[in-house]
């Protein structure tokens, strides 16, 4: 049956969720203010929210609705990507409610449950609600138990869907990830759990699949016969900011390698899914994650780094050990480079060099496929001295786009071949108006589209890659590198040993 006014052919009509409530735990936090509330406003402004839509903010503040509203107003106005329209905000704000309380306060959760029930009568919301956990992982069990106790997580009892959105970190290692997953899956049903990896909401990341599976040009060379190596880089120019406590306890590998970078690697390395059904895509990604092999000697095949004081983008930057709230003897890494492999026929012997770092010269995330040199060059060696590997580079951020690098003759009377770059770039304005990752992902949660969310098995499999690395790194000190450099010298040497070099991203 379904809605007679909707057909698959009518692609102008956007997907709009059913009437529902979005419950944000930790609504006064950083993420909520910078990303979540602006995303909700942008969705409203684009007309993508249903007529019945309510935001319930839960946090430990002694506040009235008014205080919350002004905080949300500031946040939305500051972070919105679509033009500011006061009337849209007014209408949205009238649907904002604040529920004060701490996570161990039974009465507050009873009040929340009653508020949700109340919405059914007042706003025509038939029990649908998404719970967004914008809170420290330590608080997860508390909140989940409260949701279980009040029956708020129960689909059947509420008469609609009840979904939960969890932010990274998904645990701290395999053990904690498994117990967290078990807890969440127990309280909610597994298919109602949405783990946000905001990288997957990015336009270019989704474009990796389009590039690979919608074209016939790239797939035939997408294997060990033609690919020499793959470099995945995620560089940030900023330091650790205000996340000292969290960051010092986890480090670069747990913070971003485990999730963002392994997800990128999975998308680049995976086989073609049978269809774009979420299950099929996930099955293929999982296969790649399972096939990841670590260097046989982790000490040689990986490099950890920690930034020293230096200069970044014309400004003085303090060293990691001088950052506020970081112990002066910390051995936490702010840079990781590791040589991974994928054990299957497609990728046999192709190294995947993955690196992440803070206080790098500039902010860039990219995936570079480096192709093998032509098996025979009929040119004089001097003529092709400047010819490097052919490269296909997928720039994830900023300046989203694709670069193809290949050799071309230098104009002139001699035969001289040199690399040139063919640069495809989404227009500046285009990227500006394309939805922000959070906007897309929040909408997907409310609509119930799970394609862009990793599931428990992916998360656990990613930890199986990270755990042995962390074990091998225990009791070692990271190599120092100056802020504003492309990581420690050891990382360059690691590639040099294999006759390769990092691409200057």
């Amino acid at each position: 049956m379904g809605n007679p006014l909707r057909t698959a052919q009518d692609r102008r009509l956007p997907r709009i969720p059913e009437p529902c409530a979005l419950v944000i735990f930790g609504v006064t936090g950083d993420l909520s203010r910078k990303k979540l509330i602006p995303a909700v406003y942008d969705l409203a402004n684009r007309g993508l929210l249903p007529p019945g839509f309510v935001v319930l903010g839960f946090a430990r503040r002694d506040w009235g609705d008014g205080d919350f509203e002004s905080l949300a107003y500031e946040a939305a106005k500051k972070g919105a990507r679509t033009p500011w329209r006061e009337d849209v905000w007014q209408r949205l704000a009238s649907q904002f409610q604040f529920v004060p309380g701490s996570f161990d306060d039974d009465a507050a959760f009873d009040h929340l449950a009653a508020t949700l029930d109340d919405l059914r009568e007042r706003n025509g919301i038939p029990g649908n609600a998404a719970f967004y956990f914008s809170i420290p992982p330590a608080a997860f069990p508390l909140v989940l138990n409260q949701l279980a106790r009040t029956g708020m997580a129960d689909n059947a009892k509420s008469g609609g869907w009840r979904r939960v959105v969890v932010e990274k970190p998904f645990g701290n290692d395999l053990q904690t990830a498994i117990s967290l997953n078990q807890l969440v899956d127990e309280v909610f049903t597994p298919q109602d759990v949405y783990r946000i990896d905001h990288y997957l909401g990015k336009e270019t990341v989704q474009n990796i699949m389009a590039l690979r599976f919608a074209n016939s040009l790239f797939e035939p060379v997408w294997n060990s016969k033609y690919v020499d190596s793959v470099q995945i880089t995620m560089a940030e120019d900023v330091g650790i900011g205000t996340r000292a406590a969290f960051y010092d306890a986890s480090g670069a590998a747990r913070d971003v390698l485990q999730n963002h970078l392994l997800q990128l690697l999975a998308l680049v390395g995976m086989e073609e899914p049978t269809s774009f059904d979420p299950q099929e895509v996930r099955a293929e990604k999982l296969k790649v994650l399972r096939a990841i092999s670590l260097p046989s000697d982790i000490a040689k095949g990986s490099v950890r780094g920690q930034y020293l004081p230096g200069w970044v983008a014309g400004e003085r930057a303090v060293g990691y050990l001088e950052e506020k709230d970081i112990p002066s003897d910390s051995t936490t890494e702010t840079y990781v480079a590791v040589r991974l492999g994928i054990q299957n026929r497609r990728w046999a012997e192709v190294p995947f060099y993955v690196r992440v770092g803070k206080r790098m010269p500039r902010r860039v995330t990219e995936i570079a496929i480096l192709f093998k040199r032509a098996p025979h060059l009929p040119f004089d060696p001097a003529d092709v001295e400047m010819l490097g590997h052919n490269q296909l580079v997928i720039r994830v951020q900023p300046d989203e786009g694709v670069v193809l690098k290949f050799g071309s003759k230098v104009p002139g009377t001699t035969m001289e071949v040199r690399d040139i770059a063919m640069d495809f770039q989404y227009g500046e304005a285009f990227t500006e108006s394309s939805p922000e990752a959070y906007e897309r992902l929040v909408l997907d949660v409310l609509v119930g589209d799970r394609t862009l969310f990793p599931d428990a098995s992916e998360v656990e499999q990613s930890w199986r890659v990270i755990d042995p690395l962390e074990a091998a790194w225990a009791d070692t000190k990271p190599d120092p590198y100056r802020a504003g450099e492309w990581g420690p010298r050891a990382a360059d040497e690691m590639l040099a040993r294999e006759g390769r070099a990092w691409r200057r991203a």
Partner: protein
Amino acid sequence: MIGLWDTTGNEVVKALAAERRSAGGVASGLALTLVAVVEEKKVREAEAAATIAAAAHPCRLLIVVRSDLEGRSRLDAEIVVGGRLGPAEAVVMRMYGRLALHAESVVMPLLAPDVPVVTWWHEEPPHMIANDFLGVVADRRITDAALAPDPVAALRQRAVDYAPGDTDLTWTRITLWRTLVAGAFDTTEERVTGATIVAPKTDPTAALMSGWLQSRLGIVPTWEYSDRSPRMHSVQLECANGDCVTVTREENTALFSRTGQEDRYMPLPKRPVGDELAEELRRLDADQIYGEALGAMAGVTGLDAKPTSRVHVWKDPALAARAGAEAGAMAGPGGSAA
């Protein structure tokens, strides 16, 4: 920017290539060529709209202004790459005299190789698109019935002259309306038994809304004429169980009311033409739903089965005028649009 007065097509091609070279790959990824057919007094408006649309769809923009057909043949051109017209590369061409009847001779060499061509008339839609070569060469054709003296009649003519790949901006203007109305039936299985549209008699969007509801639901909506607002005022759907869903426009918002529920307000802004154009450029294939709605509205069937490409039919206004003077002996060709 380069301005060329009393020039030739070849000069324009050369100047565009030179500008592109000196701009240094500003617009490296071209998704399409947009040909905008505009009357002189609407050029600024069209430029503004195309700039917005080009931001989302990198394109080569060719603006064609045809006027003064009686005068001497003359071509003036202005070439802008990465300047005031946004990320697009643009050529504004003004054609006079007999040259205006052969605009394609200037435009064809300027089309970007092997990317789709979209022609957009930001003026009264042509009676038969087959008579305008700039429409025949296009993969997608966008008209705007609202710019015709009798918009509803102009929309009917679009049905008569339809080929898959045609759309009218009237249709784009009701996307938000349709979203609201369709959203009301996501959560209910109720059958719709009747509909009432309140709008001025001359409102083409209401006509198309009626056609859409008719084609999707198999009902014949009632059109209540009302001049209380210059545009469509409300759409009401009656369900089999007696429930009513009404969407009423109030300024930039829609009042959404449904039996047994609180009234709610949803955004329903009037979008600039540029945004509408950008929505059109998002899809370059034929819009079957539009075809069905247009057919239902005009009472023409089989629109979908019409051939997708047109054959140019030469129509000389000078001949027609002369023929008209000779007591209308010849009505002029144009009937064989298919």
